């Protein structure tokens, strides 16, 4: 299994009603790889990510995750999701639980771990993101950056094989972005398999093994991070990067 890609997306199509947002995506992600997906808003990159744990159902094509075709309706998607963590743009911490409970509840109810074990794993992961002393806090008492780090600890507490990040820093104040990116960079260095939809070009360039540029429901360009971001070959990629990297002059 180690030499087989952990995610294989084959000719994936996705429509919302009449509108087709993914128009035939082919993509493989290997174990330990960090893949960043960039592109303008509305390009379908978040939808693609959400298809990987079936928060969005697919219209046609197959997605094989950890050896299982998750587009098959008979597959136990709940069991598979325990191995595929997800971090959301809006954090989505459970508002009715404190930080520690956020990190233990699924371990207890889904994985059936004991209270003591769940707690130990949660505390280890909270320490990992630098928030081991905030276990008793309510999500609303934390800053956005802290909430997002808790969300990462919550996902890690399930001991997943893959982590999906859906624009994890887009809802943060600029000065809080760094803390979250630092945690993500450490995870990457520890060998976590990550798919990251992001607008942080510096992060993509420095951390990603591979960068995918999407526009209008298709993959326009993909390759090593340095190549796609520093020397894109496609016109659309060049245009997008000019706009993102130098917004004040992009109109010229």
């Amino acid at each position, binding site marked *: 299994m180690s030499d087989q890609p952990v995610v294989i997306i084959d000719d994936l199509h996705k429509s919302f009603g009449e509108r087709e947002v993914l128009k035939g995506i082919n993509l493989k992600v290997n174990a330990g790889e960090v893949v960043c997906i960039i592109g303008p808003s509305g390009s379908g990159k978040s939808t693609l990510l959400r298809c990987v744990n079936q*928060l969005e159902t697919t219209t046609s094509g197959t997605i094989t995750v950890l050896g299982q075709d998750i587009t098959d309706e008979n597959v136990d998607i709940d069991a598979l999701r325990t191995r595929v963590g997800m971090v959301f743009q809006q954090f989505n911490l459970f*508002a009715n639980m404190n930080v520690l409970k956020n990190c233990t509840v*699924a371990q207890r*109810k*889904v994985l059936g771990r004991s209270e003591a074990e769940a707690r130990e794993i949660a505390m280890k992961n909270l320490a990992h993101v630098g928030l081991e002393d905030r276990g008793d806090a309510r999500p609303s*008492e934390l800053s956005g950056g802290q909430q997002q780090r808790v969300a990462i600890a919550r996902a890690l507490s*399930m001991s997943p094989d893959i982590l999906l990040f859906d624009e994890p820093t887009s809802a943060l104040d600029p000065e809080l972005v760094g803390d979250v990116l630092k945690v993500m960079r450490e995870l990457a260095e520890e060998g976590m398999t990550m798919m990251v939809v992001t607008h942080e070009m510096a992060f993509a360039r420095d951390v990603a093994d591979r960068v995918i540029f999407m526009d209008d429901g298709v993959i326009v360009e993909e390759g090593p991070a340095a190549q796609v971001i520093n020397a894109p070959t496609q016109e659309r990629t060049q245009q997008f990067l000019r706009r993102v990297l130098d917004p004040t002059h992009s109109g010229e």
Partner: protein
Amino acid sequence: MSTTTPTTPRNPEGSRLTPKQKSRISQGIQYAVLVVVVAALALTANWDRISKNLFNPSVASDLLPMLPNAFVNTLKYTLAAFALALLLGILLALMRMSSVALYRWLATAYVEFFRGIPAMLVVFSVAYALPIAFGIKIPSLTLKAALALGIVSSAYIAEVLRAGIQAVPRGQIEAARSLGMSHTRTMITVVLPQAFRIVLPPMTNELILLTKDSSLVFLIGVSAEQFELTKVGRDALNNGTGGLTGLFVVGFAYLCITVPLGILARHLERRFGEGSRK
């Protein structure tokens, strides 16, 4: 956006008042108005007639022995109706969110129908139409009251519950599902606890409305030991002495139920809401 007048200074030449003084004066005026209104009411009221026909102490004290039983009956009819309304309401709310279109349609029709007709019609129907149409004769008055009032109230409660459940942000559900929780597990662990706090104030309203609607059981015909508060008040009204005193006495008795309910709801809201929202 350009105007010819310069920006107004905070304290222009004409007015010698600072904003603080102005707000003091405004508050003073508000208190003064209140005092004047209360004084006017006190002076124009006919206290002699009030003490004879509206708050007649001797008539009120005659009523007192009947109140405890009526008070308990009101509570009994209300709680029985609320229990049934809650069960039916949950069922209807689930039906309204069902993936089967027919269930959604049935629940919507139920809600629109029973929300739209006077509760009195339902009370009559349960008491008299059910026996005629189906030969069903419900022996207990409490059960009849619970059925009639519960059917009506469940239509409102279903809507309150549905709105409460749907008010829980979608992201909460997605986060739970992404951690491998099943649909049911997500409901129990994440959605319902948050919906509970959201529905608490409107549910309190429902219970208070139901408390007052329990007076409708007098339509079914009750024996003396089955009297609830309003029936006692109405009978006192017909006694001839004391005028409206009976009504005011039972009105006060209703407040003894509804005001503590409101306080309890606010207390629960604070307890369950602590920190879950800014």
